């Protein structure tokens, strides 16, 4: 005879198994994206060697890197808050992440504005710089859209601590975007 406890146990097992499959799928997606960004890094070194343009603003690069790292921390806090059912903090940290991501994007736009006059995309360094930062910024904007959608649904109480996957997935994607920048920042700004 099946008891209510057995039904609950089966439901929890089914949810856990679905979550495990979701996570594996997300990691496979991240792995495939890594191939793309890894290829870009290879292109950067094969075309330019260790050359870096002296006119590139080191301070801007450092500031936007710090902002993106900080946004990873706020995203981490959002995920943790969701895990414990703390909706207020989840919303707060998702909003911080959105704000920091928007500042990062504005920083890249400012960098582009400055760079266009110094090394346009028609130059070897310009083509590598605009391709790498452009593709990364595109992913950042995509991440912002996803987090904004998740934020809206958290506000409507669509997710609970028993179904944290949408928040977790969007946060994982955001961390991945951060990891890519961890390699792009030294490759474009620091190595010379």
């Amino acid at each position, binding site marked *: 005879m099946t008891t209510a406890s057995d039904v609950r146990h089966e439901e929890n097992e089914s949810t856990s198994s679905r979550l495990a499959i979701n996570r594996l799928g997300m990691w496979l997606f991240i792995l495939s994206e890594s191939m793309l960004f890894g290829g870009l890094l290879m292109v950067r070194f094969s075309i330019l060697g260790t050359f870096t343009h002296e006119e590139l603003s080191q301070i801007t690069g450092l500031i936007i890197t710090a902002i993106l*790292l900080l946004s990873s921390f706020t*995203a*981490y806090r959002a995920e943790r808050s969701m895990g414990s059912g703390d909706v207020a903090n989840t919303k707060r940290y998702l909003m911080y992440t959105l704000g920091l991501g928007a500042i990062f994007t504005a920083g890249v736009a400012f960098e582009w504005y400055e760079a266009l006059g110094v090394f346009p995309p028609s130059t070897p360094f310009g083509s590598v710089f605009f391709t790498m930062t452009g593709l990364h910024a595109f992913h950042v904007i995509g991440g912002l859209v996803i987090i904004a959608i998740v934020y809206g649904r958290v506000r409507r109480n669509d997710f609970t601590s028993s179904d*944290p996957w949408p928040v977790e997935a969007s946060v994982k994607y955001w961390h991945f975007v951060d990891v890519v920048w961890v390699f792009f920042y030294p490759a474009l700004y620091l*190595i010379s």
Partner: protein
Amino acid sequence: MTENVPLAEAPTSEGMGIGARVILVLAALTVIEYLIAVAKPPGQIGMIFVIALSKAVLIVIYFMHVRQIWRGNHA
């Protein structure tokens, strides 16, 4: 009606502390990376690469919880 069972790790004070420590280490490594690039010591490319790799590993382990793939929710 089923109970809400938290599937993600609960934000214990230890969990929060780990996140704060990781972000501090990431910030310190970024500053070191920047200073190496400014000072340009011999072997700077190797040093910068190792630091970047360390930062990525920290994010993947502590923020992205890669260990959940094989350890479930206890990672």
